[in-house]
């Protein structure tokens, strides 16, 4: 490969700018990450209830077992070999809060998310088991959001003030004001219950759970209603952003030039307007994908979907804080990474954006 020296130099400079920007963003992660873990840690420590009671459940523990459990969860001081340290009175020494926080962070950085109080299994294996469900649902939802949202937005903008435009505006306003879990229940009612009744049980959609060996429906059908519910609000926003962006671009000078050249409206939109109008939309959809990966507690609860959001919510109600801390930490990191990827790709999509030069602090 050969390129003109000046161009190579420019490309290199841009590459360095991107790397610098990524490095800067990763450095900014650090205080946010520490803050998030610290807040979770404080919550865990002020929440009422002794973890030992949660671990033991109804069982009565003898003091030695209890001590061993406390040692295993790092609640009392142990030496390097895991032996419990006693003070001069022969009592165990509770680990101080700052020390426990440091221990927690150290374990975290080594990939150890701790052990569930109630189930006794490692938090990381619980997350690995549940996260795929959330990711799958998010993928289906984001496809719906992109296709329906962008499509509706384009139609709405091209046929401005028409019946379709009014319809899109109306539906998006309703979707944004609706509790998503209520929409989910309505969908269950319509497609799971009424449709089943109306067709004598011939046609219906599954209203809860996921596919499995004994499932009554084909696997893919289980995604439909939860994915629509999860995508509903953001599809509305996508359509709105698409509409306003396209209308904005259509007012630009270069579109008027294209019109003056005699291009048809369709060609103008396809070749000139859409590309530029899509950039903020793609960014929004990307960010929203990150938000969906944070787990959809409400959608997952309504549809008994065994994802990370529901798992974390159940853990909160059971006061199983290792799971809460582990999954929220993982979620926060995933969301931050997705947002970084979106920001970087934004600059690739739109050459007018120069990473690091703009003042995007705040």
């Amino acid at each position, binding site marked *: 490969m050969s390129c003109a020296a000046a161009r190579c130099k420019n490309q290199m400079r841009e590459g360095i700018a991107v790397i610098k920007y990524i490095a800067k963003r990763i450095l900014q992660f650090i*205080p946010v990450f520490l803050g998030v873990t610290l807040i979770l840690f404080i919550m865990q420590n002020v929440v009422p209830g002794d973890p030992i009671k949660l671990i033991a459940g109804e069982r009565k523990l003898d003091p030695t077992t209890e001590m061993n459990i406390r040692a295993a969860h790092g609640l009392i001081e142990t030496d390097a070999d895991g032996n419990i340290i006693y003070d001069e009175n022969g009592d165990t020494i509770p680990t101080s809060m700052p020390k426990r926080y440091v221990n927690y962070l150290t374990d975290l950085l080594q990939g150890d998310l701790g052990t569930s109080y109630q189930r006794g299994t490692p938090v990381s294996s619980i997350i690995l088991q549940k996260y795929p469900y959330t990711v799958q649902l998010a993928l289906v939802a984001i496809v719906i959001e992109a296709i329906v949202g962008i499509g509706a937005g384009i139609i709405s903008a091209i046929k401005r003030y028409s019946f379709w435009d009014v319809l899109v505006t109306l539906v998006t*306003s*309703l979707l944004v*004001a609706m509790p998503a879990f209520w929409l989910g229940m309505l969908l269950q009612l319509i497609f799971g219950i009424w449709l089943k009744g109306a067709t004598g049980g011939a046609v219906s959609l599954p209203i809860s759970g996921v596919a499995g060996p004994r499932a009554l429906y084909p696997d893919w059908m289980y995604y439909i209603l939860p994915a629509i519910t999860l995508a509903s609000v953001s599809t509305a926003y996508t359509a709105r952003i698409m509409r306003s962006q396209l209308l904005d671009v259509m007012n630009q000078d270069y579109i008027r030039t294209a019109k003056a050249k005699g291009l048809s409206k369709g060609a103008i939109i396809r070749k000139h307007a859409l590309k530029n109008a899509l950039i903020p939309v793609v960014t929004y959809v990307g960010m929203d994908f990150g938000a969906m990966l944070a787990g959809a507690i409400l959608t997952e609860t309504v549809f008994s979907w065994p994802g990370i959001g529901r798992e974390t*919510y159940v853990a909160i109600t059971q006061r199983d804080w290792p799971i809460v801390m582990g999954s*929220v930490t993982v*979620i926060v990191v995933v969301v931050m990474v997705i947002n970084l990827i979106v920001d970087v790709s934004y600059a690739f999509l739109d050459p007018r954006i120069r990473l690091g030069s703009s003042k995007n602090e705040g």
Partner: protein
Amino acid sequence: MNYPVSRPDAQAYADSIAVEHSGVASADSGKSRTLWGDALGRLKKNKLAVIAAIWILFIIVIALSADLWVPQVLGDPNSTAANMAAESRLPPSLEHPFGTDTLGRDVLSRVIYGARISLTVGVVATGISTAIGLVMGAIAAYYGGIWDTIIMRLADIFLAFPYTLFVIAMIAVIGNGIQNVFIAIGILGWPSIARVFRSAILSVKQNDYVDAARAMGASDLRIIARHIFPNSVASIVVYATMNIGGAILTESALSFLGMGVVPPDPSWGTLIQSGQQYLQTEPWLMVLPGLAILSTVLAFTLLGDGLRDALDVKMKDA
């Protein structure tokens, strides 16, 4: 500090400059018009916003006057168990337009009483977020430097949390019940308001009249209260209006998950939650509370949109 001009005069002068610069000084007609009078005129022309405002007023009036005319919230106190079973989960009829629940209580009455709780949560939680957000935003923007960094990083941390999980975790820590729902939603809502107010202040701060006021020795607090706040209040009003709808949605989600308002208090979220188990047989139990949420949140959004246009506020993240 000694100034030749007496302080009150100097500040009155600065105040008058402030009014001039905010672009709402007297109109050509000679009749003095205010920002709010102007905005009200424009708002009245926006039909959707007017309908939304009327709907909100209607809900407020109904909720406040419920004790005077809403019947049989708890069913008939003298009814026996057999009676109660007979009254239980009746389908919609003239007597009970939206049917009755498991305990024979009229669903419409419950929804009307639920309006009190849901609206209160919306308004109080927004009030708390706004108060914290204003103070944080003001400190960050006005003092800048290290304060700005600390507060905005703190906002980043709060915003990095998955919101619903954060609210639920907060409730798990402080316990459920109405007051704690206020607190949890209110405390977690400050970062976005702080950002809006911060950028509003930053743009107002560059005006000459702020420099003029400072040159005349006005205190920081006075400059913020007398010059900066009045000139950025429009964006706060718009943001808070929209935020009320969001808070109502959050409350309904919390109550739906059983972590918000505790039964027998009827919030719209708890009503949907208790209707969920009868989805197959008595779907009307969850439909009406949902419609109440939908219409009210929609009304706050439309009113917020209307106010934004009327007050000519440019929202960065609408």
